[in-house]
């Protein structure tokens, strides 16, 4: 019997761009939209959608100043977001370092991340 237990993979962070945004903001106090665009190599539209998703999940706090084309968004990671990222990273590290015994459990793992 296999005693290996899979860590729960957060589906919100199981996306390259969302993960990039979260890691960047976790290393900073705050960053504006243009900086995130540059550092993640993402398009504005895509970045905007992913930020909104993370904001709705309570992982990011977005402060907007001004209106119209000159509006500026400043993003910060919340405590909930920081904890989620930490759990996600720990889960990944555990998966990477611990031995996954057989194909059956691998199939099970694949199901959890879909």
């Amino acid at each position, binding site marked *: 019997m296999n005693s290996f237990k899979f860590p729960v993979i957060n589906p919100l962070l199981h996306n390259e761009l969302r*993960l990039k945004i979260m890691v960047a903001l976790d*290393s900073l106090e705050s*960053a504006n939209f243009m900086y995130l665009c540059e550092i993640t190599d993402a398009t504005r539209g895509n970045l905007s959608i992913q930020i909104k998703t993370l904001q709705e999940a309570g992982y990011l706090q977005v402060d907007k100043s001004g209106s119209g084309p000159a509006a500026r968004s400043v993003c910060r990671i919340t405590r909930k977001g920081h904890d989620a990222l930490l759990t996600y990273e720990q889960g990944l*590290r555990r998966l990477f370092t611990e031995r996954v015994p057989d194909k059956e459990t691998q199939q099970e793992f694949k199901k959890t991340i879909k």
Partner: protein
Amino acid sequence: MTNSQEYTHQELEIINRMRGKVMGRNENSGVNLFMVWGYPTVLVFLLEFAALMILQKHWYEWLWVGIPLLGVPLMVHFQRKDYERTGHRTLDSNVALQMWIYIGAASAFLGFFTGIAGVYPVCYCFIQGLLIGMGSFLTGIISRFRPMTTCGIIGSVLSFACLFLQGDLWPWQFLIVSVISVIALIIPGHLIFRYVKQFNSFNS
């Protein structure tokens, strides 16, 4: 390597790469912060010395007000400009900023209360010099910039010289604090400025 390990390896690669990218681009710093507080501090202390020694005026005791009056608007302006230029603020620079705001407020209270209590000539310059040296030392530790840490230590040690300049010699304490400000604020400010410039030109 199993499939799941390959997958996790890729994800961990993304995390590490992003962290490295963000940390490698931390070009905003306390550069202006040091110069912004350093030059007004030197100027005000030299003015205090001149007012006392040359003009023999007693309003010298309130000239310290000029430091926050000049420093705060300049600091706000440069911080805003820095943020607009880089688009982000690091955790380190935020901690350093909060610490210097605290030191600035402590200096203002120090000037005010030593003036009222009549002990301005005795301890104001010593404590002020010690605060500047400590602030510089701690900022050096936070930003992992050794020259700043060294300058902070030199500044703190120099501040003790003020304790030996009492009685008729006390106006010379202002010159000591001016020297401390040059060593602990202006020199590290210029050193970081040069370092950041070199770092940015190397990266670009």
